[in-house]
């Protein structure tokens, strides 16, 4: 999934070069562009389009994993249906709405924390000090480890019986008795968020660092000459200049967080207190074998992510127009 990156400044209209005006050449160029695009489009429609359409189709049927042979068409029943004075379907399932809320909460909190920590880490890495390259490489380690591995690692570290986290906290006298970090509903969401922040902060830091390296030095020299406080410089100069890069980081992370599955499933399995939309869909599909119902949940998840993307692009464009005026 690539998202078009919005330009940080509107492009001024330039008169077209001479050869562009010849329509023949232009047609040729357009055709060439299509030739280059075709393989990508074919591949995408096979690996993304086809499964998506199949899921959409299943969501209108009563397909079951125990027998995938010709399922019955049942219309919108998997989504919402009124029967005998009660509502049924995914949209009437309190567990689904709990999963939607969990996902939204997880996404907003974890992405916000990652942006804050990512910027801090990037500013540190941007400074000149000895061994900077080594630190830069070290910071990337959490991002390099596959989520399934790091989540299992954390699951053991957070274990209430033999986990090192409880052991350390008890050694320093911070807690009196072991805490079941991943089993206790009041801690488990925070445990999941913490592991996700630990893992993806380096990614945000990397994007921000790239932006910081491109900043013009003269602004800072001017600010220094004028004796402006560094904090003020950061908010007035640095932040506006790295905002485009930050926005890219945020949209990438947000789309990732909305479809989060592995970190939650490994740490807390199917517990409703942390269940995300993807975990819910998997449970319906695999554990309850209800391919129709699970596909309906997957389709809704797809719609929610699509809406989030469209809203983001729209807002981005609006901001551009405002900025351009």
């Amino acid at each position: 999934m690539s998202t078009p990156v919005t330009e940080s400044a509107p492009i001024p209209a330039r008169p077209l070069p001479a050869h562009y005006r010849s329509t023949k050449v232009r047609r040729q160029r357009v055709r060439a562009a299509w030739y280059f695009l075709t393989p990508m489009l074919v591949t995408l429609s096979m690996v993304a389009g086809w499964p998506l359409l199949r899921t959409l189709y299943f969501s209108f049927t009563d397909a079951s994993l125990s027998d995938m042979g010709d399922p019955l068409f049942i219309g919108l029943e998997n989504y919402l249906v009124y029967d005998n004075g009660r509502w049924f379907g995914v949209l009437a399932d309190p567990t689904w709405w709990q999963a939607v809320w969990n996902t939204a909460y997880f996404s907003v909190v974890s992405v916000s924390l990652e942006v804050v920590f990512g910027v801090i880490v990037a500013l540190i890495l941007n400074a000149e000090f000895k061994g900077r390259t080594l630190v830069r490489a070290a910071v990337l380690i959490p991002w390099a480890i596959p989520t399934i591995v790091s989540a299992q690692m954390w699951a053991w570290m957070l274990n209430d019986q033999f986990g090192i986290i409880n052991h350390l906290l008890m050694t320093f006298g911070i807690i009196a008795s072991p805490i079941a970090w991943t089993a206790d509903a009041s801690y488990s969401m925070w445990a999941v968020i913490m592991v996700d922040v630990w893992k993806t902060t380096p990614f945000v830091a990397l994007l921000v660092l790239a932006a910081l390296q491109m900043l013009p030095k003269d602004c800072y020299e001017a600010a220094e000459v004028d004796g402006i406080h560094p904090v003020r410089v950061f908010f007035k100069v640095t932040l506006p200049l790295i905002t485009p890069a930050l926005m890219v980081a945020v949209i990438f992370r947000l789309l990732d967080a909305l479809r989060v599955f592995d970190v939650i499933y490994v740490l807390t399995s199917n517990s409703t207190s942390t269940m995300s939309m993807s975990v819910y869909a998997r449970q319906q599909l695999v554990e309850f074998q209800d391919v129709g119902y699970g596909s309906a949940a997957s389709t809704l998840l797809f719609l929610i992510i699509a809406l989030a993307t469209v809203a983001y692009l729209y807002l981005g464009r609006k901001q551009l127009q405002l900025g351009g005026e």
Partner: protein
Amino acid sequence: MFKKSLIPTLVVAGAASLGHAQAADLTISCGAVGAELQLCQQGVQAWEEKTGHSVDVVSTPNSSTERLSLYQQILSANSTDIDVMQIDVVWPGLLANHLLDLREVLGDDAGAGHFPAIVENNTIDDRLVAIPWFTDAGVLYYRADLLEQYGHEVPETWEELTEIAREIQDAEREAGNDRMHGFVFQGRAYEGLTCNALEWVASHGGGTIVDSEGEITIDNPQAAAALDRAASWIGEIAPDGVLNYTEEEARGVFQGGNAVFMRNWPYAWALAQSEGSEVRGKVGVTQLPYSGESSSAATLGGWNLAVSRYSENAELAAELVAFLTSEDEQKRRAIEGAYNPTLESLYQDDEVLEAVPFFGELYETFVNAVARPSAPTGDAYGRVSNAFFSATHDVLSGNRSGEQAVSDLDRELARIKRRNW
């Protein structure tokens, strides 16, 4: 979606395709709880020596909930990776479409001599899809030495158990064993909690969630009282961590000498009495307690062996199943691992009774065990069980009262019933 769960499948596939020179003829997947895997490997080895065929043994996740997911993915992909599967007593209805009718291959007397109730459970639409391997029922383990020391009889009711557990736990802690707990069981939100909670509800006279006619019966005061009683143990006589215990975690606490009572399956007997166990020679086993006018209830568990319809060596696989479920093999497993035979005759066998005395004493418990409502709910059983253990876990965590939980559960089950049974 399937990224995570395909990994084991790929490993299996990779192991099975390591070149034709040493390619195995069959692949069997066994459980790995306690000594299960070791016993399975020994049985398979005996068959290999007898027939000259080679078999790969693949171990699966310990949680039965996880294991079912894995099997369903393998089977619905019509994969040939696994020929013989160890399936839970509540699965035949869910998996029947993907399993072979063993009577076709092994003849009409396949399943003869096994407990009729289990054979019937494994017969779906007149097809015998699995042969019983061992049966299971929940039992109560107690520390005979501690009961004697503090002058108590073995408890018969839940009230007595709670009292005795509290008294001995407190006295033991006074005496310097800080880590002593009164009672451990399986409290994690998974299939095992369904088994535990069904025992509490049934032994309080609260029925079996859904009756044999398919009517939902959970919303009654006895069921609510049973769940409330269990919730009152948490943090009092049971550790807080019990909310995340499966069979093996509970056994770890009991076998380490840190619990007075434990609810578990019979397999824990052989391990608790093994060399190096802290409680060797101090353990007694009895039927689970009851309350008021009701009688003791033990959830029927147990595992069967089935052959995948997509197996490339179906006849050979069925022969392996016949060998592993035979009298000799079941006898060996009973003596070495305390796995309950499914053959009536072995319950009168002196060697078996000497190794596991309670097979004789609790014979009635094993034959009258309470079945989970998998038959009346059919395909929907996974959902029903999930709704039940989630609600129970909620009550144990103190988020809901028993009364609230059973009325919510009644509504939830009605939603499921409307679509599925």
